[in-house]
């Protein structure tokens, strides 16, 4: 299907961004194909799931009848996804949002076509929404398959845990990834509308996105830290979001933070693991994997809210600024 088959309202914005769309679609296709191929290869190795389950003694031989010889080949192949696909998937929502959002208004202002476009449209807000709608749908169409394929890759590369109950690689899949794509689309649109030049807007939007990501990450980490529970067994750790290590003083029963623990250990025992194990019990704190969906919805929702607020601000800028 070519752009000519689309309704006129959708055709124009997509035609204006066709070069960016082709490049981003190529990256999305490569990511989806790569994730599905690596996942199929991992499945094809046929390593039993029991080989990946935690055991009390990791150095012990596997139980009789369990063939775990393919585990090394499995980890080698899983390493391909870690080194190539996942870093690209992590930046992909930022690329989509920036390269579709910034030129949405910024290019029209920079090339001087906004003057004519805005004079022909009864409302600048309606003009913006008409341009934004198809691009927002395309953004979703680019991000959703990538997010789902990364979920599939996660299931294949961590067979011991359900990807929907695991925080592993959570920023590169699920609603978090899609939400950040929409947030960056909004921030990019706002930066383009304010600055009216594409490359400067791209730089500023990139910086704002990084700042927003840090703030949201810090905020959600604090929220999760407040709700962290002890992860007392290896099976508790499966899929959990590890947040903190605390230490119980076996003599007093007092629970210590890492800093307090360091001050409780005499200098001569700082490297003596046996002495420390005899006097303190280390306890991991975190969020169990069963809460992954809830956290994914919250982070994705916050990101979408950032995008919506940015778009609202962009609409205000567009309706008031000189063309």
């Amino acid at each position: 299907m070519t752009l000519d088959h689309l309704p006129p309202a959708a055709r124009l914005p997509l035609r204006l961004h066709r070069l960016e769309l082709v490049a981003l679609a190529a990256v999305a296709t490569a990511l989806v194909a790569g994730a599905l191929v690596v996942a199929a290869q991992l499945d094809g190795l046929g390593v039993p799931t029991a080989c990946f389950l935690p055991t009390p003694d990791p150095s012990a031989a596997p139980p009789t009848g369990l063939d775990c010889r393919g585990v090394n080949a499995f980890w080698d192949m899983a390493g391909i996804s870690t080194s190539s696909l996942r870093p690209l998937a992590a930046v992909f929502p930022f690329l989509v949002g920036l390269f579709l959002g910034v030129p949405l208004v910024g290019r029209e202002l920079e090339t001087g076509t906004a003057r004519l476009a805005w004079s022909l449209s009864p409302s600048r807000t309606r003009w913006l929404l008409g341009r934004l709608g198809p691009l927002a749908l395309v953004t979703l169409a680019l991000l959703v398959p990538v997010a789902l394929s990364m979920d599939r890759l996660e299931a294949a590369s961590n067979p011991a845990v359900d990807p929907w109950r695991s925080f592993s690689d959570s920023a590169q899949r699920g609603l978090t990834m899609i939400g950040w794509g929409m947030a960056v689309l909004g921030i990019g649109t706002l930066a383009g509308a304010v600055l009216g030049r594409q490359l400067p807007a791209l730089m500023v939007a990139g910086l704002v996105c990084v700042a927003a990501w840090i703030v949201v990450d810090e905020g959600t980490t604090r929220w999760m830290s407040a709700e962290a529970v002890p992860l007392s067994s290896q099976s508790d750790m499966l899929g959990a979001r590890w947040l903190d290590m605390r230490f119980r003083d076996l003599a007093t029963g007092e629970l210590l933070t890492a800093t307090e623990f360091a001050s409780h250990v005499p200098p001569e025992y700082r490297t003596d693991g046996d002495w420390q194990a005899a006097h303190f019990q280390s306890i991991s704190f975190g969020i169990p994997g069963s809460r992954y969906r809830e956290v994914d919805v919250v982070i994705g929702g916050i990101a979408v809210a950032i995008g919506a607020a940015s778009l609202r601000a962009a609409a205000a800028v567009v309706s008031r600024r000189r063309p």
Partner: protein
Amino acid sequence: MIRTTARLTFRLHRFELAAVAIALLVLAAAALVVAMRLDAFGVPISCFSSYLSNGPAAATGASPSHCEQLVRPFFAVNEEEAGKVMAAMAVLPPLAGLLLGIPLVSREVESGTTAIAWSLTGSRWRWLLPRAALVAVVLLVLVAIPALAADRLEVARQPWIVADRSFTDIGLRGIPVVARAGVAFAVGLLVGAVIGRQLPALIVAAVVLVAILGAFAGVRLSLERAEAVVTAQPTASSQSDSTSADPGALFLDTLLRDASGALLRIDEAAARAPTGTDPQQWAFDHYETVVLMTPGDRYPMIAWREAALLGGVALVLVGLSLVVVERRRPT
């Protein structure tokens, strides 16, 4: 004439120039601050040699606990802060080159101003060359500042090595960084001139730059292997002595040497193992293990050669940009 062109060029690209200048100066300042923080630990070299050869528990330069207390925070800062500065050195200078190279032609084409600009100037070359040269000179001077600061940081983060005789962090400091930024600028200029739109050009130029630098890394490795020297593998007991003899050497490969002096890859030697034996163990037991390496004192020559080769690539790309600008339609 030149002053007018310079003023116009800087005015047209003032945001990108200012942003790139701020980012590169902040990076240089970060490198110097981290270097001073590392220097401030004042770790004796004896602590490092013991730490590096035997691990933290055996750091016995002065008393073990004293060395350990000095070395641990040193390496924490080295990894956390200096590592991030060096990672930024890999990304920021090429990105600066792209951001300054791409808009030189593509912004004019995209906004339709080339039609009048090219019709008013006698030659499109004369229109492009002064602009490109001015921006390129500013870029290279700006990139040289963090490149030199990163050299200084390298001295601080590995005080047991003479930095200008070490391949550690090659490409992240010194003259190769400036050359990479120059190539990125030329790639941005060419792709911007071909595509004529800034954001698509940025995507394509980034891909082209990664491909060029990847191909160049392959060429560099081939050159280094051709010029490498073969030395005996240091034994466990002589490891620290050997490390201190040429700690800045570039390790390329481990090979095996047979009685005739011929060099074999490990898999080639293992293929000669009799059946019923562990092939690799047999190979290591029956052949002398040697390493293929480039001595650290060749670093300055190789760094300058890398810069010269990349500079040549950049000049070719600028030449292609001139051809494209000469022949393309102005819209």
